[in-house]
């Protein structure tokens, strides 16, 4: 059979690191956080998988997943509405004795039967807190050529501030690698090291059978977390190799990084690094083009379709269907879908969630380091 597809299935954990941005995940999960004017975080990793020929993707959801179901639908927009494989959203069973999973071992233990029946030789696993155009094919090829048991993607960078400040939270786990050549010799949990580290992206490739064996073993032992409980203790026993990702990435570690990573895309070179290459797919809304009415002013903005701009916008990201009325001023803001800024309102350093209204003449100001957040459906 002619087959350009990768011999791998994808597994995405859409709830990972939800707790880092509590405001944004009030009614959603990490995967469905709006990003870059018309996307959701999951679009990046999902499109990357599809672009690399992965046509069988499971999304193991934990909670707050209605927005994600709505976004993904049948998976058609990602070319994943298929007879063979395609998109598979796995919700938790609501049984008293089975707790909603907290780590990947538990999550995967719930889908062992599914994993057993799949045909693909390899599995790739990823979270959704990093927006990037990821080349899974290259990583898979390296995995196969190197003969590794497990290959883990990492970036060379200092540990992000948002990560470091989260160590005191219970259940927060972050991984860095110590490398011997391409081999990962040690996995550190919540490292305090300064300077450039090998920072894990929590993206892994391994053989499906090995994953099944390790999950079975780990689950019996009461293990929760795949990296902490399965990989970290076995760096001697398993051949774990690193795959360095050198492309553009936008990591959401906290509200500040969410704000900054959006704003960084106002620079063309950043936007081009994230989007040039393989396309990123998202749900289509069929909005009309954006209309700039006489008297409007726009400077240094990224704006999606369906907006109507009568006022002034500057240094801002506008998602689909935003309305900025006459005399309103929007500066250094991120306005999510269908936000309405009424006449004469002035806002600066504001992140508005979907369907927010800022009423006529209101003024609202946050700061560079602490943007004001307005929750979904609120009227200010």
């Amino acid at each position, binding site marked *: 059979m002619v087959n350009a597809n990768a011999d791998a299935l994808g597994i995405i954990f859409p709830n990972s690191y939800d707790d880092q941005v509590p405001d944004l995940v009030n009614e959603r999960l990490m995967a469905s956080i709006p990003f*870059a*004017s*018309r*996307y959701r975080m999951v679009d990046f990793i999902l499109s990357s998988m599809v672009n690399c020929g992965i046509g069988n993707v499971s999304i193991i959801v934990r909670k707050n997943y209605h927005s994600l179901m709505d976004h993904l639908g049948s998976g*058609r927009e990602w070319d994943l509405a298929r007879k063979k494989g395609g998109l598979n959203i796995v919700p938790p069973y609501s049984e008293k004795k089975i707790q909603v999973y907290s780590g990947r071992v538990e999550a995967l233990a719930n889908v062992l039967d599914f994993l057993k029946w799949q045909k693909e030789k390899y599995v790739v696993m990823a979270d959704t807190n990093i927006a990037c155009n990821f080349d899974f094919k290259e990583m898979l090829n390296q995995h196969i050529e190197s003969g590794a048991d497990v290959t883990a993607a990492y970036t060379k960078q200092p540990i992000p501030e948002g990560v470091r400040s989260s160590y005191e939270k219970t259940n927060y786990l972050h991984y860095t690698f110590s490398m011997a050549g391409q081999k990962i010799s040690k996995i550190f949990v919540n490292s305090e090291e300064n300077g450039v580290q090998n920072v894990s992206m929590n993206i892994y490739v391994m053989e499906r059978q090995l994953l099944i064996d390790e999950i079975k073993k780990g689950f019996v032992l009461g293990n929760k977390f795949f990296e902490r409980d399965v990989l970290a203790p076995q760096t001697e026993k398993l051949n774990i190799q690193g795959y360095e990702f050198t492309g553009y990435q936008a990591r959401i570690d906290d509200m500040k990084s969410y704000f900054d990573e959006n704003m960084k895309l*106002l620079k*063309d070179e950043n*936007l081009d690094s994230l*989007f040039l290459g393989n*396309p*990123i*797919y*998202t749900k*289509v809304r*069929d909005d*009309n*083009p*954006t*209309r*700039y*009415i*006489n008297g*409007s002013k*726009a*400077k*240094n*903005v*990224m*704006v*999606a*379709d369906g907006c*109507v701009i009568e006022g002034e916008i500057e240094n801002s*990201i*506008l*998602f689909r269907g935003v309305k900025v009325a006459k005399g309103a001023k929007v500066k250094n803001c991120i306005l999510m879908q269908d936000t309405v800024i009424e006449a004469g309102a002035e806002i600066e350093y504001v992140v508005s969630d979907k369907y927010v209204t800022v009423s006529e003449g209101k003024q609202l100001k946050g700061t560079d380091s602490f943007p004001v957040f307005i929750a979904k459906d609120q009227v200010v």
Partner: protein
Amino acid sequence: MAKEMIAMLLAGGQGSRLYALTEKLAKPAVPFGGKYRIIDFPLSNCVNSGIDTVGILTQYQPMVLNEYIGNGQPWDLDRLHGGVHVLPPYQKASGSDWYKGTANAIYQNIPFIESYDPEYVIILSGDQICKQDYSDFLRFHKEKGAEFSVAVMEVSWEEASRFGLMVADENDKITEFQEKPKQPKSNLASMGIYIFNWDILKKYLIEDEADPNSSNDFGNNIIPNLLKDGRNMYAYHFSGYWKDVGTISSLWEANMEILDPEHSGINLFDNDWKIYSRNSGKTGHKITETAVVENCMITDGCRIAGHVKRSILFSGVKVAEGAEVEDAVIMGGTVIESGAVVKHCIVAENVVIGQNAVVGEMPHDGEKGVATIGSGIHIGERAKVGPNAMVNANVKDGEEEW
């Protein structure tokens, strides 16, 4: 399972009066309004009216149109029973025929229509910008007990002689049909949108085909024959926005009119009557520090660093710093380099306008020329394209084209 009404969309027209724009694609596939193609309007009207079966009759340069329609999914027309079907002329055991006229195109697809066993068939044209509820039209047709109905628009008496006119009595019953008459007896212009009872349409198509002198056209043959036989024919008054975009100037005008939905009558910001299209999949558009944007429609993938005024920019258009764009319709993927001045014109897809080139000019002294540049053309640096030019070959650096 029988369908109450199916649509047959005539999309075979060459659109020769659009010249450079329709050299490589059929008129219904011509881009319109920032992110649409003309055919999105009748297709969206069908879906919004509850019609889920549409046959598209193609003939001239069908490749772009075929690819664009695909399986019909963007219009929600990928259905188990019905959906959208592209119907080109085909070879039969007894030979093959091009579509000889609008009526012949339908005649050749009688088996397609029969397979849905419809009670009514609506005939649509693929070259009009219009938001119309065909279910309201059908309700009228049924209430009147009509065998044939035609949608008509009131036009001014001065213009009337340019149209096919329906003369109707106080009950909207059609008593006479005049094709582009010198002495108009009516100002009700046919929009070229018809509802037929299928049994009647089929009978007249078969009779028309048997007539060797017929030009196999709805306006010239079928409608006069219906009249002659005293059939129940009614005129359905439509009063919304309607524009036949068959010429460069009407296409330019219709594009400009979407900038002013408050006065022009066409509103694309209508959530109750969305116009669907195939999506470009590009990121939100960007407007830089140096840009000035006044009264424009801008869509995904655009990068604006220059001065853009009263213009429609399609997906992925780039306007460099120092470039000036005014009263222009710039189609997808076109790049306007720095210092270029682009005014009062239509620029097709994937054109490059070099540095300091001049394309078109603002009208003066009653001149209304709309400069037009065909798709994929390269306009060299410092080149000049006059206000009446129709450019379908590259213009070299510093050269002029009038």
